[in-house]
């Protein structure tokens, strides 16, 4: 029996605040099965656990601290013009704290 279930997929969808149709749920399940088979193949590669995971395309990023200079931020009028519900100089959004 598969370790992936319809309920599990719905649970993940809920956590992501996404609703799925029955058909979409089935597509996810099928895809999980395929990926799981491929991951089984990956696990057959000898000493795979000793390989350092590659997290980015290049390994030589040069990071630096910017000079501590004051800069102009985005123009407030531009931001207000971009918002749907504006009251004076404030943007109105739904209540997002319980």
């Amino acid at each position, binding site marked *: 029996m598969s370790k992936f279930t319809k309920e599990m997929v719905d649970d993940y969808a809920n956590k992501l605040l996404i609703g799925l149709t029955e058909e979409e749920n089935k597509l996810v399940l099928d895809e999980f099965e395929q990926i799981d088979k491929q*991951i089984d193949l990956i696990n057959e*590669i000898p000493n795979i656990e000793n390989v350092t995971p590659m997290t980015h*395309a290049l390994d030589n990023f040069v990071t630096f601290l910017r000079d501590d200079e004051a800069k102009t931020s985005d123009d407030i009028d531009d931001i207000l013009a971009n918002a749907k519900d504006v009251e004076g100089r404030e943007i109105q959004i739904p209540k997002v704290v319980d």
Partner: protein
Amino acid sequence: MSNMNKTIKELHELLKNGEITSEELVKESLEKAHQLQEECNAFVTIIDDANPEKVTDNLLSGIPYGIKDNYSTKGILTTGSSNTLKDYVPYFNATAIEKLNKAGAVKVTKTVMDEFGMGGTGTTGHTGIVLNPWDKTRICAGSSAGSACAVAAGVYPYALGTDTGDSIRKPAAYCGIVGYKPTYGMISRYGVFPFASSLDHLGVLARNVEDCAIVVDEMKGIDEKDMTSWDSKDINLFANLKEETEGKKLCYIKELCDISSYPNADEELKLHLENFHKTIQKCRDLGIEVEEVSVDRKLLNALFSTYIVIYSAEASSNMSNLTGIIFGPRGNADNYIDMIKDHRTNGFSTLIKRRFIIGSYVLQKENMERYFKNAQRIRRLAVDIWKDLYKKYDAVISPVGIGPAKKIEDINKSHDTNTVTLDEYLCIANFGGFPSITIPNGFVNNLPVGVNITGNCFDDSNVLNIAYTLENALGYKNQIAKEVKNNE
């Protein structure tokens, strides 16, 4: 007479000599865009009020171009081809757009893509399927579908794309044009919607290698707004573009390119691989050394799942801000949780939802080692193999996809694992950040097919010069799509 079929250099000459004006070019480009929209649905927005630009010594000045709809364009609708951002108008430009503005380039369209770049078919955008201008029963591939379609149809000489797996390079092949993504970070990603940040590249689609070099020279450069960008001032792609064969060595991967890997191959795949081997012979005739190399089949066949796992994980995180609260149309509900759920359920396409769930699953603490970390380990093993190849060879050459553009009804057709690997393996260039270019190399059943050249990081000039040499020898540069009626 059409001007938009010409190359950037030809157009610049005509503009400088006063034989045409930027206004005339913009008018022609817009007219062609409207015509193509009727036929192929390539655009989210046609910028009818686009203003002509002053012609300067900059090769791009006064010339129209197209932009994939995930590049932020100030004051112009930028949707990512998603219902979740269907009305979003940014108040700033992506860095690449700022640079092209300074060059005097004229933006005339925003092009349709697969939703947020996810999916390789050009069928998941919120404005509908992009049809291939060579055969309207077929796809353009994606995700830079509209950009490829419009350049192939002669709406303008070039359009911008993005490439996370092969999203510039496969549409280029399916549409008979050139698609180039430079080394990771050569072009700033600032202002382009992130999809899978460790794999996302910006690039260009054009009808010849030289035009790609001209455009990327203008787009590239270090940007303090993108910490992964780097200083490329010593790389001058256009100035250094030349035919080079002496001492050049390419390799191709036996497991991908040998027909014996595909016992169930259809006629199109057989012809595609035959054509690829003719291209190899052409390289040898030119004096380029080409060798066959072998790569572990198990590793090759793991590449596509590796790609899905990594990009799903990164995308589910990157796009968690798409809630309808801070961007996009607000969902209908009494409380913010249900509002977000309504927005995301109705806004995202099925494909995106599937990928988010997979991404979330592989990132869970109990699953991370088996899925996400192992995918990242495969990424390193594969990249190390390619880096080893680059010690001996200038580039890896390979066929693009498993034939010409697929029929719309065949996009979900299942294939055996080896065939899927051939279709999807160009993501290796995203894993390693390698410069990678597709050029047209002929026809299968009267439809264009492409060949890809991928080299080592920062070796963009070399990769482009090899592509330029081969392009001139193959004779398929500057193609404009001609609708094929006999392909059933």
